Protein backbone atom coordinates (compact mmCIF):
# COMPACT_ATOMS: atom_id res chain seq x y z
CA UNK A 1 0.00 0.00 0.00
CA UNK A 2 2.78 2.43 0.88
CA UNK A 3 4.69 1.37 -2.23
CA UNK A 4 1.71 2.07 -4.49
CA UNK A 5 1.15 5.41 -2.81
CA UNK A 6 4.81 6.33 -3.24
CA UNK A 7 4.66 5.39 -6.92
CA UNK A 8 1.61 7.57 -7.46
CA UNK A 9 3.19 10.48 -5.59
CA UNK A 10 6.35 10.18 -7.66
CA UNK A 11 4.40 10.16 -10.91
CA UNK A 12 2.32 13.13 -9.79
CA UNK A 13 5.36 15.17 -8.85
CA UNK A 14 7.05 14.38 -12.14
CA UNK A 15 3.98 15.62 -14.03
CA UNK A 16 3.80 18.70 -11.85
CA UNK A 17 7.40 19.74 -12.47
CA UNK A 18 7.09 18.95 -16.18
CA UNK A 19 3.99 21.09 -16.47
CA UNK A 20 5.61 24.02 -14.71
CA UNK A 21 8.68 23.68 -16.93
CA UNK A 22 6.39 23.73 -19.95
CA UNK A 23 4.72 26.90 -18.74
CA UNK A 24 8.15 28.47 -18.47
CA UNK A 25 9.54 27.34 -21.81
CA UNK A 26 6.69 27.36 -24.34
CA UNK A 27 6.64 30.21 -26.88
CA UNK A 28 3.01 31.31 -26.82
CA UNK A 29 0.16 31.84 -24.36
CA UNK A 30 -2.13 29.20 -25.85
CA UNK A 31 0.51 26.48 -25.71
CA UNK A 32 1.24 27.43 -22.12
CA UNK A 33 -2.43 27.07 -21.20
CA UNK A 34 -2.42 23.59 -22.67
CA UNK A 35 0.67 22.56 -20.70
CA UNK A 36 -0.59 24.06 -17.46
CA UNK A 37 -4.12 22.71 -17.55
CA UNK A 38 -3.47 19.14 -18.65
CA UNK A 39 -0.53 18.39 -16.37
CA UNK A 40 -1.99 20.31 -13.46
CA UNK A 41 -5.24 18.34 -13.35
CA UNK A 42 -3.58 14.95 -13.77
CA UNK A 43 -0.82 15.66 -11.24
CA UNK A 44 -3.39 16.78 -8.68
CA UNK A 45 -5.42 13.63 -9.28
CA UNK A 46 -2.41 11.36 -8.83
CA UNK A 47 -1.08 13.08 -5.74
CA UNK A 48 -4.47 13.12 -4.06
CA UNK A 49 -5.13 9.45 -4.80
CA UNK A 50 -1.64 8.66 -3.51
CA UNK A 51 -2.49 10.50 -0.30
CA UNK A 52 -5.82 8.70 -0.01
CA UNK A 53 -4.01 5.37 0.22
CA UNK A 54 -2.02 6.36 3.31
CA UNK A 55 -4.66 8.33 5.16
CA UNK A 56 -5.29 7.41 8.82
CA UNK A 57 -9.10 7.29 8.86
CA UNK A 58 -12.13 7.41 6.55
CA UNK A 59 -13.01 11.07 7.17
CA UNK A 60 -9.72 12.20 5.67
CA UNK A 61 -10.43 10.05 2.60
CA UNK A 62 -13.73 11.86 2.11
CA UNK A 63 -12.11 15.27 2.36
CA UNK A 64 -9.45 14.29 -0.15
CA UNK A 65 -12.13 12.89 -2.42
CA UNK A 66 -13.98 16.20 -2.29
CA UNK A 67 -10.89 18.21 -3.29
CA UNK A 68 -10.14 15.66 -6.02
CA UNK A 69 -13.60 15.81 -7.60
CA UNK A 70 -13.66 19.60 -7.35
CA UNK A 71 -10.32 20.12 -9.08
CA UNK A 72 -11.13 17.44 -11.64
CA UNK A 73 -14.19 19.41 -12.69
CA UNK A 74 -12.93 22.96 -12.20
CA UNK A 75 -9.46 22.71 -13.82
CA UNK A 76 -10.63 22.34 -17.43
CA UNK A 77 -13.44 24.86 -16.88
CA UNK A 78 -10.94 27.46 -15.65
CA UNK A 79 -8.64 26.97 -18.61
CA UNK A 80 -11.59 27.13 -20.98
CA UNK A 81 -12.85 30.46 -19.68
CA UNK A 82 -9.35 31.88 -19.69
CA UNK A 83 -8.76 30.98 -23.33
CA UNK A 84 -12.20 32.15 -24.37
CA UNK A 85 -11.63 35.54 -22.74
CA UNK A 86 -8.22 35.85 -24.38
CA UNK A 87 -9.69 35.05 -27.78
CA UNK A 88 -12.51 37.53 -27.29
CA UNK A 89 -10.01 40.24 -26.42
CA UNK A 90 -8.03 39.48 -29.55
CA UNK A 91 -4.86 37.92 -28.23
CA UNK A 92 -3.33 36.63 -31.45
CA UNK A 93 -1.74 33.16 -31.41
CA UNK A 94 1.70 32.74 -32.92
CA UNK A 95 1.22 30.81 -36.13
CA UNK A 96 4.04 29.52 -38.28
CA UNK A 97 3.19 29.88 -41.94
CA UNK A 98 3.90 26.90 -44.16
CA UNK A 99 4.66 27.75 -47.80
CA UNK A 100 2.63 24.92 -49.26
CA UNK A 101 -0.40 25.71 -47.09
CA UNK A 102 -0.41 29.44 -47.77
CA UNK A 103 -0.04 28.98 -51.51
CA UNK A 104 -3.01 26.64 -51.74
CA UNK A 105 -5.37 29.39 -50.48
CA UNK A 106 -7.38 27.74 -47.74
Amino acid at each position, binding site marked *: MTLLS*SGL*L*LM*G*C*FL*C*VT*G*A*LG*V*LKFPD*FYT*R*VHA*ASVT*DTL*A*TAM*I*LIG*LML*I*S*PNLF*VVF*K*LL*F*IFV*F*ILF*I*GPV*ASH*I*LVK*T*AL*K*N*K*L*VPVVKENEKVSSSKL
Partner: protein
Amino acid sequence: MLIAACFAIFIAMIMAMARAILGPSLYDRILAVNLFGTKAVLLIALLGFVMGRPEFLDIAMVYALINFISLVGILRYSDNDVFKVDDQQDQGRSE
Protein backbone atom coordinates in the same frame (compact mmCIF):
# COMPACT_ATOMS: atom_id res chain seq x y z
CA MET B 1 8.76 10.40 -0.03
CA LEU B 2 6.32 13.03 1.20
CA ILE B 3 9.12 15.52 1.85
CA ALA B 4 10.56 14.94 -1.63
CA ALA B 5 7.09 15.56 -3.07
CA CYS B 6 6.90 18.82 -1.10
CA PHE B 7 10.20 19.95 -2.59
CA ALA B 8 9.07 19.08 -6.12
CA ILE B 9 5.86 21.06 -5.76
CA PHE B 10 7.83 23.96 -4.31
CA ILE B 11 10.06 23.98 -7.39
CA ALA B 12 6.96 24.01 -9.59
CA MET B 13 5.65 27.00 -7.62
CA ILE B 14 8.90 28.90 -8.15
CA MET B 15 8.66 28.26 -11.89
CA ALA B 16 5.06 29.48 -11.95
CA MET B 17 6.14 32.65 -10.13
CA ALA B 18 8.86 33.18 -12.73
CA ARG B 19 6.24 33.03 -15.45
CA ALA B 20 4.06 35.46 -13.50
CA ILE B 21 6.91 37.97 -13.41
CA LEU B 22 8.15 37.42 -16.96
CA GLY B 23 4.93 36.87 -18.85
CA PRO B 24 4.54 39.45 -21.62
CA SER B 25 0.77 39.55 -21.65
CA LEU B 26 -1.83 39.83 -18.91
CA TYR B 27 -3.23 36.35 -19.53
CA ASP B 28 0.15 34.73 -18.95
CA ARG B 29 0.13 36.22 -15.49
CA ILE B 30 -3.43 35.15 -14.73
CA LEU B 31 -2.56 31.61 -15.83
CA ALA B 32 0.57 31.57 -13.67
CA VAL B 33 -1.28 32.77 -10.57
CA ASN B 34 -3.99 30.14 -11.09
CA LEU B 35 -1.31 27.45 -11.42
CA PHE B 36 0.38 28.75 -8.26
CA GLY B 37 -2.90 28.50 -6.38
CA THR B 38 -3.52 24.91 -7.39
CA LYS B 39 0.01 23.95 -6.41
CA ALA B 40 -0.51 25.68 -3.07
CA VAL B 41 -3.52 23.41 -2.46
CA LEU B 42 -1.35 20.35 -3.06
CA LEU B 43 1.42 21.71 -0.86
CA ILE B 44 -0.96 22.31 2.05
CA ALA B 45 -2.38 18.79 1.74
CA LEU B 46 1.10 17.26 1.64
CA LEU B 47 2.37 19.32 4.57
CA GLY B 48 -0.63 18.22 6.58
CA PHE B 49 0.39 14.62 6.07
CA VAL B 50 4.06 15.33 6.79
CA MET B 51 3.26 16.94 10.13
CA GLY B 52 0.81 14.18 11.07
CA ARG B 53 -2.20 16.52 11.16
CA PRO B 54 -4.65 15.81 8.33
CA GLU B 55 -6.84 18.66 9.58
CA PHE B 56 -5.04 20.98 7.15
CA LEU B 57 -7.24 19.58 4.40
CA ASP B 58 -9.99 22.01 5.38
CA ILE B 59 -7.68 24.91 4.51
CA ALA B 60 -6.76 23.21 1.23
CA MET B 61 -10.43 22.83 0.32
CA VAL B 62 -11.15 26.49 1.05
CA TYR B 63 -8.15 27.64 -0.92
CA ALA B 64 -9.14 25.60 -3.98
CA LEU B 65 -12.57 27.27 -3.93
CA ILE B 66 -11.08 30.75 -3.42
CA ASN B 67 -8.66 30.19 -6.30
CA PHE B 68 -11.40 29.36 -8.75
CA ILE B 69 -13.72 32.15 -7.64
CA SER B 70 -10.98 34.75 -7.87
CA LEU B 71 -10.14 33.58 -11.41
CA VAL B 72 -13.76 33.94 -12.49
CA GLY B 73 -13.98 37.27 -10.68
CA ILE B 74 -11.03 38.82 -12.45
CA LEU B 75 -12.21 37.56 -15.82
CA ARG B 76 -15.60 39.23 -15.32
CA TYR B 77 -13.94 42.58 -15.90
CA SER B 78 -12.93 41.55 -19.40
CA ASP B 79 -16.05 43.03 -20.96
CA ASN B 80 -14.64 46.52 -20.74
CA ASP B 81 -11.87 47.78 -22.94
CA VAL B 82 -9.33 47.53 -20.15
CA PHE B 83 -8.22 44.02 -21.04
CA LYS B 84 -7.95 44.53 -24.76
CA VAL B 85 -4.61 43.55 -26.22
CA ASP B 86 -3.09 45.97 -28.68
CA ASP B 87 -0.84 44.70 -31.39
CA GLN B 88 0.15 48.03 -32.84
CA GLN B 89 1.59 49.47 -29.59
CA ASP B 90 -0.43 52.69 -29.43
CA GLN B 91 1.65 55.20 -27.55
CA GLY B 92 -0.66 58.16 -27.36
CA ARG B 93 -3.87 56.46 -26.34
CA SER B 94 -5.28 57.10 -22.90
CA GLU B 95 -8.15 55.21 -21.24
